[in-house]
């Protein structure tokens, strides 16, 4: 219920009698050196500790340190939080914290009419205004009239607050983000103590910096208390969301995928080998796993993307659960090796944290345009199962499912996530690993042929071949990328052999459909006028748009697909029960093509490729147009 909060333009910023909002969207925007991601992250934590549901959207430039004050150097962090279920980072912010003119310029148009701008006048000097391509100071020319403006010199107030600590000017100004955070904590009635503890921990070796930052935080908080007496600033209390009882934490997609892979390997009773090569936004999975060696994880930073997957396949061959991860350009490089994993029928998990493409594209922005690549993107008939995560917490289960399919079917599996899921945080009811059904692997130990011979490509009822570790006495055999004889696996180019093996590889992957849950309707009826069919991180906006449309009496359902390949067995029949089908995707219509191809249904695309997630309103408008 991202934007349920405001019925009129001034619910948040209006008089003291405004209703207690259900949800609020706050965006912190500043220079990439201003620490906005850190501010957002800490605000997220305090929000979670306050018991609100939340969803975040970090949006930062690809440049590590873009030139200060420039429009392309703006880094933003948006958080949507409330006392009700939150599934998107929010369509439009209610509050924009703009630390400089560039941050104001690039973000203010997103702000809800009547929303609150908090701006640091200390940064609105001639030089910064020029860099942001403002001819006159927007804080003074009336151009921000449709919003509430709270402009004051945060820079000076911060310097004043940290004066007793004798920091240099540059270092002192670095405390600005903590001052701002203090104000934000006051605005939403948050406890400062966890943050103070965190600062003390972070600056353990520099207690002076800890004290300065805490002083700035307290000063920002105190400013709020004083300023409340007059002006647009007031304090809000967002009630905790009603959640199922249990232990909670916040989690990002990169974290939950890492944990899910660890859980998957444990459930398979295997050590895990992770071969990776740094690439945005996938690197954080490698970072996380490198710290989890005690869970039987070996991480290997390879010389390139190809070596990353090749080493993982080598490790799988030797009896580990091989995992590799990348983003689109790196996945493209891995294509040939994926084919080898298909051909040699070795388990492997390939995680793709999608970003805007093609080529280098938009490294730090999200997109879901690698579906074709995942489903179709290899030479030859090379079927690979594909699973897509819908949110940070869902990614945990998806990673486990990817591991299960890989080892039970002796196949590479692609797990699709995206930059949004990887970086976004949400509250997570900490799962109990013991509640998952284990799927322990057994390696072949003895010759399996009817006459005592070894048949490395004999198949079980699932169509899977045995997993044979080198080092096992008496089971020496050779595998490779050349077509092979069914059964013995010896080189065999004969027409009958290639036909038989191609069929067997396809039948095996198709058969995975029998091991996955039937497709359910996520929200709404099993038949009707309109179904919105989505996958991946568009879950939140689609779900909320459908919910709202249904509240308004529209006949629309939401179907969210986790298993992209093979698709659930009942999906075709289900889709045929609707008059119209719309497939919202952050690409030019990729799942749409697959659905049309598989079921001959008239699935209509709804596409967005701006590097930004869908807003609820965009999808709502499409629903209304379709049912008009």
């Amino acid at each position: 219920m991202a934007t349920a909060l405001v019925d009129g333009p001034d619910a948040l910023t209006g008089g003291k009698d405004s209703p207690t909002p259900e949800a609020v969207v706050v965006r912190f925007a500043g220079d990439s050196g201003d620490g906005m991601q850190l501010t957002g992250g800490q605000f997220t934590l305090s929000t979670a500790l306050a018991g609100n549901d939340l969803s975040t959207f970090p949006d930062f430039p690809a440049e590590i340190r873009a030139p200060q004050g420039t429009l392309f150097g703006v880094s933003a962090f948006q958080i949507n939080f409330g006392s009700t279920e939150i599934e998107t980072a929010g369509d439009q912010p209610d509050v924009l914290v703009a630390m400089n003119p560039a941050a104001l310029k690039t973000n203010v148009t997103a702000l809800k009419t009547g929303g609150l701008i908090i701006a640091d006048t200390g940064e609105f000097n001639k030089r910064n205004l020029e860099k942001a391509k403002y001819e006159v100071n927007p804080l003074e020319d009336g151009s921000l009239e449709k919003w509430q403006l709270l402009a004051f010199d945060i820079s000076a107030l911060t310097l004043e607050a940290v004066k007793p600590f004798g920091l240099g000017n540059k270092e002192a100004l670095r405390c600005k983000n903590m001052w701002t955070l203090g104000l934000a904590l006051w605005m939403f009635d948050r406890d400062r103590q966890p943050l103070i503890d965190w600062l003390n921990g972070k600056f353990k070796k520099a207690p002076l910096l800890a004290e300065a930052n805490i002083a700035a935080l307290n000063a920002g908080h105190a400013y709020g208390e004083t300023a409340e007496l007059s002006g647009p600033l007031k304090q809000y209390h967002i009630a905790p969301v009603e959640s199922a009882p249990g232990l909670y934490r916040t989690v990002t997609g990169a974290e939950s995928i890492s944990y899910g892979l660890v859980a998957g390997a444990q459930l398979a009773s295997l050590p895990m080998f992770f071969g990776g090569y740094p690439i945005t936004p996938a690197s954080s999975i490698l970072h996380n796993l490198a710290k989890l060696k005690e869970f039987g994880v070996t991480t290997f930073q390879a010389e390139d993307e190809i070596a990353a997957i090749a080493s993982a396949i080598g490790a799988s061959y030797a009896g580990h659960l091989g995992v590799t991860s990348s983003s689109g350009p790196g996945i493209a490089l891995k294509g040939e090796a994926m084919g080898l994993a298909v051909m040699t029928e070795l388990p492997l998990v390939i995680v793709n944290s999608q970003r805007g493409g093609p080529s280098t594209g938009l490294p730090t922005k999200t997109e879901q345009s690698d579906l074709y690549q995942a489903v179709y993107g290899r030479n030859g008939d090379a079927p690979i199962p594909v699973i897509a995560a819908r949110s940070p917490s869902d990614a945990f289960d998806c990673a486990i499912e990817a591991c299960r399919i890989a080892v039970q079917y002796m196949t590479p599996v692609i797990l699709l996530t995206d930059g949004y899921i990887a970086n976004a945080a949400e509250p997570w009811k900490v799962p109990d690993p013991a509640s998952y059904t284990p799927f322990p692997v057994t390696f072949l130990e003895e010759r399996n042929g009817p006459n005592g011979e070894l048949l490395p490509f004999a198949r079980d009822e699932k169509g899977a071949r045995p997993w044979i570790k080198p080092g096992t006495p008496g089971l020496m055999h050779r595998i490779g990328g050349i077509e092979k004889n069914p059964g013995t696996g010896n080189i065999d180019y004969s027409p009958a052999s290639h036909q038989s093996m191609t069929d067997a590889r396809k039948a095996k992957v198709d058969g995975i459909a029998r091991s996955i849950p039937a497709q359910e309707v996520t929200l709404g009826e099993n038949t009707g006028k309109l179904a919105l069919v989505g996958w991946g991180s568009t879950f939140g906006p689609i779900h909320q748009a459908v919910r709202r449309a249904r509240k308004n009496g529209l006949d629309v359902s939401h179907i969210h697909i986790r298993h992209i390949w093979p698709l659930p067995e009942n999906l075709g029949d289900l889709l045929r029960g609707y008059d119209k089908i719309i497939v919202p995707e952050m690409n030019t219509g990729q799942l749409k093509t697959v659905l049309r191809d598989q079921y001959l249904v008239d699935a209509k695309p709804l596409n967005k490729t701006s590097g930004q997630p869908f807003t609820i309103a965009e999808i709502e408008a499409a629903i209304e147009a379709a049912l008009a």
Partner: protein
Amino acid sequence: MNDLTPIKTTIKDWETDQEVRWCPGCGDYAILKAVQRTLPDLGADPANTVFVSGIGCSSRFPYYVESYGFHTIHGRAPAFATGIKLANPDLDVWLVTGDGDGMSIGGNHTMHVIRRNVNLQILLFNNEIYGLTKGQYSPTSRLGTNSPTSPLGSVDRPASPCAFALGAGGRFIARAYDVSKELPNVLKAAHAHQGAAFVEIFQNCIVYNKDVFADFTEKANANTGQLWLQNGAPMLFNKGTQGIALDVAALNLKVVDVVDGDWQAAGVIVHDVTNRAVAHMLVEMPFGPFPMALGVIYDDPRPTYESAVLDQDAKARAGRSNDLAGLLAKGQTWTVTA
């Protein structure tokens, strides 16, 4: 390569039932036999031995050795082998590659497997030509090589595999040729070396690049063309009448005549396999003015990559629990009560 008890095998135990599909007369046959003859002498266990290859004529090798074998993709065998060794360091891994596979498409991986010092043997069959794709010039082809893709002669300068391997940080560099009687001894030395052992084997492609090494491999040319290096022995060739000495002024090697066997008087250097500076000169020594340096050129082990990884993993794991539930519940959490 590993501490396992030696296994008694014969050459027959290392032969598969698969028909060998190289051209009749190909140098690969001789290399295959040399390897199959060497493995019993090493006490190697077929169940614990893995041959890993890329793509090319040489990369068919694993299919013909009765052990575990993985015929992978073009140029990437070193990366597969690295994954295998990290997953199970006890496996005895032989990497078979060629001049196209290892020096061209897979040059990057060859560099890194050597740089990391993964404990395995790399056999690079160098025939200075692309055989399986029908005779195009390769990164080791000499200037002016006529081929379907260089009908007027190749104009790019060849790479030297041993110089490349040494430059990549190699700790074991050796050279031999397909039909040489010394090949098994070189293979044994490579196997004994802990770490990435790089062996360049000159191989005669009788179809596309016939006799390209005849200037030193032919019997008539062996005396003048081959310098067999032995640790602790003077660098003598041509029946002891010539040797390699240091040209101090030019900071390089030179050929000197040895009179009456008095190599000391001629200033001939004694081969020290741990002398890296001399190794650099030996691998760069141009054939023609000099003989071809063969045998173990350099052998100075350093701790292996996988032992370093394993040590670090063991330290990171020591005294720490693998309780996943504990990990998930770490950090700042809150409890919602009913």
